[in-house]
């Protein structure tokens, strides 16, 4: 009994140190149950329910993030006031002024906590001094990033801009606005709900249909399964080990780890979102889905319509389109391009990189000058590239994240251009690419060149086959086959980009992260030691089986998945309880001993 009381005291007492309330921990579910019991008492009275949920959300944030709640409260207050000011201002100049003040506050906070360490180091190194950051609102000596800061600031920015554009009315009640910003299921890692979607729900009475309840429980169980089995299990037993020391593992294992990481990241992040959506649904709130089977994407552009949808649409709405979108380039495009080129030079400390950045910009400028008809396509590619690079930089001031963003930008632009080309040009380009790969393999033999040549030859061969088929004028489209090839191609490309992303997480120095990728490619393109394969498969069959099962599940038709969800949701409650317990039991068998936080908590 004393142990239970001690547990409850640690969990709930405001005098105790902050706790980690992850969705995968028993403590969180006790917290949620306690909150839900009180919620049930207030559910009938909308105003009271909202006030209660705001208090619970703030208390949840305080127990997890400690004194960072001061920052959350400050931005709730400032953006609430600025939203009102924008709504009341009659002249556009004043509206713009208030938007600027809000953006300065929000972005300054974001930059301070995300990039101050990097900038202090860079400036200190430039001045030859050992500069340190003041660590306010932190219980340690280091500057600690407030929990979920990106997500609640992005939510605030979207609200302010939408109010300025007239898409939403300013929220009159600070308590409503506070709940929109701090709603506890989604405050830590999203989804980044739009005010126009969430605020109206605050005025609706609580309702939860029998089937909605079933779907919410299903979402929670799916989230837990994804996180623990497809995320943590393969990470702790395989992927983390390979990424921490790729040279110790064979080419096959490195390749499997790269593919496995694509699955792990998806399972980890979408698992969080599924649980958040399920929890919100239990309280009568509907959050938009954040993922739509992203590895079914047939091209990089399509991938970003399916991955982290709330952030992608946020970037599109508040960055890509204001930059000019696919219409034209703006001052902002050049401003960010120059700034990003500067960041590249600062990170690389290399004149060669600076020269390359200038050369690339000059080539693009020349292309726009020589082919004015391609102006819109070039503008779209440039704006897309800036958006993806800034998306990369948002994850951290690190080479790996910049390369990851750049690769995605490049992939999207290359795909758009490729699609616009006539078949004969695609064929010629594929032949050139294949030829270059073979020549490179012969004259510059290296593991990286081996990988490049295999990929280029496969690409060239498939393009040639499609071109020849196209020449025959045959009508049968083989749409399924073409789709499979596109999905595989996109998956490989995205996996390559994720390798940089994963290596960048936790890399103490950006070069270490790059070394990891270099070493992985070295192994993938090197000797595979096929003789060792049976031994590798025997010792790691569980992990490989989980990776394979995860990918197969992911690629199952949506109809099948939603049918299963509906089937579960319509079960009688006692049966649903038994099935849920069985799922939790199975999930626990895969649980690792340590606490595995969600990957996106750090961003």
């Amino acid at each position, binding site marked *: 009994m004393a142990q239970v009381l001690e547990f409850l005291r640690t969990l709930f007492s405001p005098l105790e140190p902050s706790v*980690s309330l992850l969705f995968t921990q028993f403590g969180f579910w006790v917290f949620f149950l306690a909150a839900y019991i009180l919620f049930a008492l207030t559910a009938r009275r909308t105003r009271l329910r909202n006030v209660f949920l705001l208090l619970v959300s703030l208390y949840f944030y305080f127990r997890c993030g400690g004194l960072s709640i001061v920052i959350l409260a400050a931005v709730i207050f400032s953006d609430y006031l600025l939203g009102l000011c924008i709504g009341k201002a009659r002249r556009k100049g004043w509206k713009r002024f208030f938007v600027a003040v809000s953006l300065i506050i929000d972005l300054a906070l974001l930059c301070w906590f995300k990039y101050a360490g990097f900038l202090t180091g860079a400036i200190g190194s430039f001045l030859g001094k050992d500069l340190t950051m003041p660590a306010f609102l932190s219980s340690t000596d280091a500057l600690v990033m407030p929990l979920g800061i990106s997500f609640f600031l992005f939510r605030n920015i979207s609200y302010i801009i939408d109010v300025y554009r007239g898409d939403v009315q300013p929220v009159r009640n600070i308590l409503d606005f506070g709940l929109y910003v701090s709603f506890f299921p989604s405050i830590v890692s999203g989804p980044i709900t739009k005010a126009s979607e969430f605020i109206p729900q605050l005025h609706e009475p609580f309702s939860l249909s029998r089937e909605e*309840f079933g779907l919410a429980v299903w979402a929670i169980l799916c989230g837990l399964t994804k996180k623990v089995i497809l995320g943590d299990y393969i990470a702790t037993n395989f992927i983390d080990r390979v990424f921490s020391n790729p040279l*110790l593992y064979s080419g096959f294992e490195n390749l499997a780890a790269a593919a496995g990481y694509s699955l792990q990241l998806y399972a980890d992040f979408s698992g969080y979102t599924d649980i958040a959506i399920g929890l919100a649904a239990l309280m009568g709130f509907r959050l938009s889905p954040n993922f739509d089977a992203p590895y079914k994407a047939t091209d990089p552009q399509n991938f970003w319509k399916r991955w982290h949808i709330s952030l992608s649409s946020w970037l599109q709405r508040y960055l890509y389109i204001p930059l000019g979108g696919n219409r034209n380039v703006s001052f902002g495009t050049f401003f960010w391009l120059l700034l990003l080129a500067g960041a590249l030079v600062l990170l*690389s400390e*290399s004149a060669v990189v600076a020269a390359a950045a200038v050369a690339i910009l000059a080539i693009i400028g020349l292309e726009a000058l020589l082919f004015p008809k391609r102006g819109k396509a070039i503008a779209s590619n440039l704006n897309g590239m800036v958006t993806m690079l800034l998306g990369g930089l948002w994850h951290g001031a690190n080479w790996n994240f910049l390369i990851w963003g750049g690769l995605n930008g490049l992939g999207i632009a290359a795909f758009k251009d490729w699609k616009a080309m006539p078949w004969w040009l695609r064929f010629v380009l594929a032949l050139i690419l294949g030829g270059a790969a073979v020549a490179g393999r012969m004259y510059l033999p290296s593991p990286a060149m081996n990988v490049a040549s295999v990929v280029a030859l496969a690409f060239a061969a498939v393009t040639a086959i499609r071109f020849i088929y196209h020449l025959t004028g045959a009508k049968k489209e083989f749409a399924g086959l073409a789709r499979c090839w596109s999905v595989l191609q996109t998956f490989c490309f995205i996996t390559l980009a994720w390798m940089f992303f994963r290596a960048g997480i936790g890399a103490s120095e950006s070069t270490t992260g790059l070394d990891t990728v270099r070493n992985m490619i070295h192994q993938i393109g090197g000797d595979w030691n096929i003789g060792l394969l049976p031994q590798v498969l025997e010792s790691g069959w569980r992990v490989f089986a989980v990776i394979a099962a995860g990918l197969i599940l992911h690629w199952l038709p949506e109809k099948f998945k939603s049918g299963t969800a509906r089937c579960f949701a319509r079960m009688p409650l006692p049966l649903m309880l038994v099935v849920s*317990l069985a799922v939790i039991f199975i999930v626990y068998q895969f649980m690792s001993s340590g606490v595995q936080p969600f990957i996106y908590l750090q961003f």
Partner: protein
Amino acid sequence: MRDYCNYRFLKAFKVILFFIGALAALAAACCFFPDEGLEAGPFTLRLPKKDDLLKVATSARSDEPSPEDLLRMQMEALRAEQEKDFLDYFQNSPSRFYFPDDNPEYFDLLFESLDSASVHPMRIMYYGDSQLEEDRMTVTLRKMLQTRFGGLGVGYLPFNLLYPTMSTTQWRSYDPPRALVHATKEFRVADGKFGPIGQAARVSYPITVKYAPFSSKAPFTPARCFRKVTVITDTTAVPMTVEVEGSEVLCDTTHNALKFYTAEMPDSVMSARIQVRGSGDIYGVMLDGDEGVSVDNIALRSSNGLFFTKLNAGQLKDFYNRANVRLLILQYGTNVVGAVGSDAARSNYGQRFRDQILYLKEVAPDARILVIGPMDMAPGGKTYSYTSKVVDTVRTYTLEAGAAYWDLYQVMGGQNSIYQWVESGLTGPDYVHYSRKGADKVAELLGNSLMFYYDYYKWRKY
């Protein structure tokens, strides 16, 4: 979610009942489930114990020092001891050396060589298993010693550098077949002629290799440049022509066990292109300065350290003598602990390892030998309960054979310390291999400890 929902509404208290039912059922199952789990075929089914369930992760700082704090404390202790009493350190510090006959003057010969390294360049050969790969451990130790006693270059490198290290990368025009004393042999090697690092490459037609720093952005250390390039080959090889940066290099023919093709560069350089024509076995390349200390990284993956007696004695004697090798460091254990669970297996390994040391003493009479024993590790998530017994066995046989011993197991913090090391990022998530950060810390501690004994030597001398 709403689009295919029917609107038979549910009251909130039913949701509460559902959750209470789920939590209560789980709590009851946890209380009655056997602690050791249930066997079901290849799986062991388990449920959390009550204690695990009621554990809440807090952000409060633990009273126990982290491994980094522990190491820092040891460093501080080391500095404090330096000022106070050397002997106290020799007896009590976890990072002390164990010497044969408890003789703290065991390293004096080595320290004399270090003092005269500016006139007579010397080398330290650090043999080990995968823990050393990528130049881990040695990169820190080398930097420390070369900064203090002079010296350039990364030292001895295999002719086939299959894995880039954090210091050096290699480009080669083709992959010649190679033979490792303890593993793959792509050609037959007679009389144990694998060369001084237990690996040989056989060339049969012209080959070009280029050694260069791994990253041009890495901070400068003395090891990044070198003034001497030495290609080591078998003497029975068909006469070879070796060119370094386009200039032919003559061979030192005064010895009959190994051939040294040494090129003196006009100035210190960071990369070298070597072209070899002819056919025969090549044992490696040394990139050194013309004075000071060289520290070699000899990482033989999956090795347990029992291969030295298989190496040709004549080649080893010749090399250790000509290269003025004054310290041999042997770090093994990663591939040993899991295989010596019984007393008999431990004793057998200890005796065989002692034979290796005796053999090395015979072929390198001027060198001191330092053994670094097994670490705490937990492959598969569980530590071996008998690691301390393996450590005791290796230490006993090492001292009996007349070599010094450094107890890595104690330095880490003893039984189960590996978990904290992993948590602190000092060891990788496989619970076996050090991260670069961890290897740096260990090597720093090893180097500082060695320098502490060096200070003691100076203190006694003057």
